[in-house]
């Protein structure tokens, strides 16, 4: 049984290798191969899952050790897998959603000449992500961690000809690297503390270490989590990451990769439980991000960026929950899963909308689309209801639990967290309603006159795109990418092809029922319990109160949004807006800060260092050489060609010689 685990990773890895090295001859079949292997991996996962269900709660975990990866004296990193309930959950989510999105991409990328490579990257991502969640030690996890980073780098920058995409990709990788410092330092600390960094021993003996060390480790892990899960202060990359193709945003930047941070914290629960300070830090980060993302989400007019903000905020929920300890881990993961469903669904919906709208992403240029793309509308709508936590749908079950747990934290801390989570719920309702209304309701705002400044870069490619339009959905044409879209094309909203709608529908089902299923006599919690441990949180007020409060806030948020966008027409060009709005549009100025402090500062630093290297370090050497040369030139003058002066020097020399000799005798 456990020998299958490696297969999980191997299948997509093989796909990546074949597709990326295969060359053009695979162009025709590449996407099928990729999808097939993703599906295969899902099947294996399913097999393993049912096998696991067949065993008792305690001996469900499976281990498979392939070989020792890095053996140096006491430093041993095995290439070994551990498949327990937690990992299993992720594996299913990753392979499942992954497969769906592969399918979706077949249609979405249809007209991209580099589709083969796209699928190669997707497979690469799956492999890395699975490695991440299956690793049985932190170094191997780090391997996967960086692997998904690479995959996301490649996929964000998939349309490399767009400078914006290339920049976004680079930014994502760099910010993640900052987080990675945390992970690597954490691993080093574990090594120096426990002499190993395998999950088993470390987590088993965590409590033996001094709290200071554990706090340090915890904070470092948190840093890593911030990087990967786009938590404040390392969240800035996620918004730009939307430059990537929409399936990527759905899979990597909504459903799976960005939740790796939550996985890391949950997995390292033992360490955090023993380090309260670190936990506090975690919940703080979670709370801040939760609001941050929500606020940003409210201000964005770019549909994907709005969703990105929401992703940030939802992960904030998870991190917060994870920071609560045993009372929260399970719910964090549960929300993670449900979120995986509905957020992926929402993104796919967004993709489908953009598809119909010539890759127009500005919601102000949408409106009234429900008539044109019903399937998208329905699925998106269900996702919407799920995320705002409409009673009965997935989001409700998971998010509500988190809010309860937050209150259950106890003391003022509990109240604050509870309040924040509640507020977050309200804002979520607000911005999601806003998105919903602006996109699917109201009058259509998409008769854009061909704007003149686009005119120049009409290219031959335009003709192709025209054909595609006629033919059906427009793949983001590789030639110019969305940016270069033919000018003056009237967007002609239409439903997307089957290959795209089917995944959306499946995900919609997930968004509706997953939460419910999980909550039937809290099956999910018990499923995870052996790994994450579970304590019932006891909120100061009864759960019912909290639930109602949530609903109230929810309605308030939605109502406000309706009042603002449903009742009166939405201006096509965004109003200047309040200070907060403008700040929020600019990601609350966080990027500007980065730019001024890090980018500018860095540039100055490097420039001055280059100068130093040239003038100082090199200068010293050259200076010495020059001075020797000068000395030589001066000494040379003594050789003036006059025999008599030579004689003088000889005479003088002799005198010195005599003097010296006598002196030596004297002393």
């Amino acid at each position, binding site marked *: 049984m456990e020998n299958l685990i490696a297969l999980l990773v191997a299948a997509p890895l093989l796909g990546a290798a074949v597709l990326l090295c295969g060359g053009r001859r695979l162009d025709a079949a590449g996407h099928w191969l990729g999808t097939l292997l993703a599906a295969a991996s899902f099947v294996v996962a399913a097999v393993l899952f049912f096998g696991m269900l067949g065993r008792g709660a305690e001996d469900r975990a499976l281990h498979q050790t392939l070989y020792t990866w890095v053996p140096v004296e006491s430093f041993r990193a095995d290439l070994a897998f551990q498949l327990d309930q937690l990992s299993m959950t992720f594996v299913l989510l990753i392979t499942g959603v992954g497969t769906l999105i592969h399918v979706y991409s077949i249609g979405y990328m249809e007209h991209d000449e580099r589709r083969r490579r796209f699928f190669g990257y997707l497979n690469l991502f799956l492999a890395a992500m699975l490695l991440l969640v299956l690793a049985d030690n932190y170094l191997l996890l780090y391997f996967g961690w960086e692997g998904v980073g690479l995959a996301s780098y490649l996929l964000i920058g998939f349309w490399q000809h767009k400078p914006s995409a290339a920049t976004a990709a680079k930014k994502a990788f760099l910010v993640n690297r900052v987080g990675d410092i945390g992970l690597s330092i954490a691993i080093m600390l574990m090594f120096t503390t426990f002499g190993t960094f395998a999950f088993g021993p470390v987590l088993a003996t965590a409590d033996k270490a001094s709290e200071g060390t554990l706090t340090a480790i915890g904070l470092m892990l948190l840093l890593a989590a911030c990087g990967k899960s786009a938590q404040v202060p390392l969240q800035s990359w996620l918004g730009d990451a939307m430059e990537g193709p929409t399936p990527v945003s759905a899979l990597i930047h909504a459903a799976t990769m960005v939740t790796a941070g939550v996985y890391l914290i949950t997995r390292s629960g033992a360490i955090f439980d023993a380090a309260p300070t670190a936990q506090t830090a975690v919940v703080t980060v979670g709370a801040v991000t939760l609001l941050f993302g929500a606020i940003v989400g409210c201000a964005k007019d770019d549909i994907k960026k709005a969703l990105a903000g929401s992703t940030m905020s939802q992960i904030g929920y998870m991190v917060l929950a994870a920071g609560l300890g045993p009372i929260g881990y399970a719910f964090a993961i549960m929300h993670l899963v449900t979120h995986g469903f509905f957020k992926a669904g929402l993104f796919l919906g967004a993709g489908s909308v953009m598809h119909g709208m010539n890759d127009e992403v500005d919601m102000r240029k949408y409106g009234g689309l429900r008539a044109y793309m019903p399937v998208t509308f329905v699925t998106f709508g269900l996702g919407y209801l799920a995320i705002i936590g409409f009673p009965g749908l997935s989001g409700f079950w998971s998010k509500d639990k988190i809010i309860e747990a937050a209150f259950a934290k106890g003391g003022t801390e509990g109240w604050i967290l509870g309040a924040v989570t509640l507020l977050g719920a309200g804002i979520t309702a607000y911005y999601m309603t806003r998105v919903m209304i602006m996109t699917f309701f109201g009058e259509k705002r998409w008769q854009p006159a061909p704007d003149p400044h686009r005119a120049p870069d009409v290219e031959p490619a335009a003709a192709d795109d025209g054909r595609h339009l006629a033919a059906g959905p427009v793949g983001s044409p590789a030639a110019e990418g969305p940016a270069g879209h033919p000018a003056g094309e009237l967007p002609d909203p239409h439903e997307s092809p089957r290959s795209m709608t089917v995944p959306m529908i499946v995900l919609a089902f997930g968004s509706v029922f997953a939460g419910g299923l999980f909550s039937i006599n809290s099956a999910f919690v018990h499923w995870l319990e052996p790994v994450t441990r579970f304590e019932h949180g006891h909120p100061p007020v009864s759960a019912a109160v909290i639930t109602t409060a949530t609903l109230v806030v929810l309605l308030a948020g939605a109502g406000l949004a309706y009042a603002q966008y449903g009742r009166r027409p939405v201006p096509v060009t965004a109003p200047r807006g309040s200070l907060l709005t403008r700040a929020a549009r600019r990601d609350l100025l966080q990027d500007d800060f980065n730019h001024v402090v890090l980018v500018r500062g860095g540039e100055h630093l490097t420039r001055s260092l280059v100068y130093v290297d040239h003038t100082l370090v090199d200068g010293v050497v050259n200076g010495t*050489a020059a001075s*020797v*040369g000068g*000395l*030589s*030139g001066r*000494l*040379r003058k*003594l*050789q003036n*060609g006059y*025999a008599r*002066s*030579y*004689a003088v*020097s*000889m005479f*003088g*020399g*002799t005198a*010195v*010689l*005599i003097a*010296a*000799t*006598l002196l*030596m*005798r004297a002393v």
Partner: protein
Amino acid sequence: MSAWSGSALSAPGVHSLWTESAPGGTADAAAHGAASGAAHEAAHAVARMTLAAARPVERIPTPKIEYAQLAPVLIVLGAAVIAVLLEAFVPRRFRHYAQLFLTVVALAAAFAAVVGLAAGGHATTRAGIAAMGAVAVDGPALFLQGTILLASLVAVFTFAERRLDPADHGHRVDSFAAEAAAVPGSEQEKAAVRAGFTTTEVFPLALFAVAGMLVFPAANDLLTLFIALEVFSLPLYLLCAVARRKRLMSQEAAVKYFLLGAFSSAFLLFGIALLYGYAGSVSYGRIADVVDGSAAPVDPALASTMGNDALLLIGFALVLMGLLFKVGAVPFHMWTPDVYQGAPTPVTGFMAAATKVAAFGALLRLLYVVLPGLRWDWRPVMWGVAIVTMLAGAVVAITQTDIKRLLAYSSIAHAGFILAGVVAATPSGVSSVLFYLAAYSFVTIGAFAVVTLVRDAGGEATHLAKWAGLGRRSPLVAAVFGVFLLAFAGIPLTSGFTGKFAVFKAAAEGGAGVLVVVGVISSAIAAFFYIRVIVLMFFSEPQADGPTVAVPSPLTMTTIGVGVAVTLVLGLAPQYFLDLAGQAGVFVR
């Protein structure tokens, strides 16, 4: 040294009597050592007689000369004399060949003699003093003589090279003036050229010089030292003056060399006088004894002078100066660049190699045999000289623009390195110096031989700018020269490195770590200009009016070949030669 206990005994009275009654006594033209040496038995006899009655002194036995042990010198001297006769009697067109043949044979024979002596154990066990104490036949002497002979042998090949310049009026021409006496550019000169005259006198001159050089490091008393110095200097002065091209420079070089040389030898002589005054003798052994105070018996006069260290120290300083001049140590080096540049290149090579060997040999003997008792006085002084020489040589060389001057300065820097070995004042110091000299002399001759090949309309193109891109024109020559430069720079796998390491090692063992550090620094500086030449030859584009590289006759090829061979062999497998030098490291006293 046994010969000298005699003169220690010789009483003043006896000598004064001699001076009155037997003026013929001084007519003894042999080394003065003969006179007092013979005195050993004679003195007492004579003394007794004088008491009896003033009868004419009986004959003084002729000094005994170990001809076998002096064979190398005698062979060369004899050959030189014959060569003079050849000049007188052999018709012009044969002279070149006759002279060349004679010289080569003589040098080879002399070398054979040296080898024979060494094989006969004269270098080690049977080392002794010949010619009534005038000449030492011991390890260092034989080793250096052998080196000098080989060096001059290959050098003579370049003397005889006649293929570098196009034939002039159908006569092959070498590097020497058709008629040295003729005014440059005069009708007389043109006539001489037309007649195809050549200065074949260079061969006898060289032979005389070599003879002097052979004696110089072997000299065992100060007079012999002085004579030997003059014997090899005077021919060199003349050799400098007889270049075929750039005759004015050649003559100027000669004049400078001559005047300064005479000047320095005057100092040397005065130094000898003072030492004589101090010790009452010019014999190394005797002086050494007096210095250590182990001399016996001590007559009143000697006692009075012995008390006076000023005589000793000043005398020593002056003699030292005379030798340092020949060595080319700062601040007595200033003749070197001019002379090296002005002299005919083959002569320069010969001088640079052989003179240094001879002079350092003499210096070693002086310091190790005569003045070991004075070590604490001379070591610091020599330290100073060594340091200044190393640094000054290297530094000034950086800005040179003429290849011959460049090599001259490099030779100064090398003198400094060798001095570092000399200062070590240990047997290993001696052997390291011997090895270094052997290695260095062949590199030098080879390098100057290459210089003779690079020519343009005005003869040798010695200006560095002309060497640009030589590597592209004729890679082989450039590569060979590169090898020599690397050897000069002391890059590993060349003889230069082995020698340098040996010397530094000796210095370090001798407790002169500072010298090692300074040596390292100056080698670093020196490396710069050797590299500059390499850059010039290989990395810069050749000029349109660049020089041509003459294809030499087998003679020069041999010289260069030997140079390269020795450089590499001593670099890769030096052990055998180190052993030789090691065995030859002990001076007889």
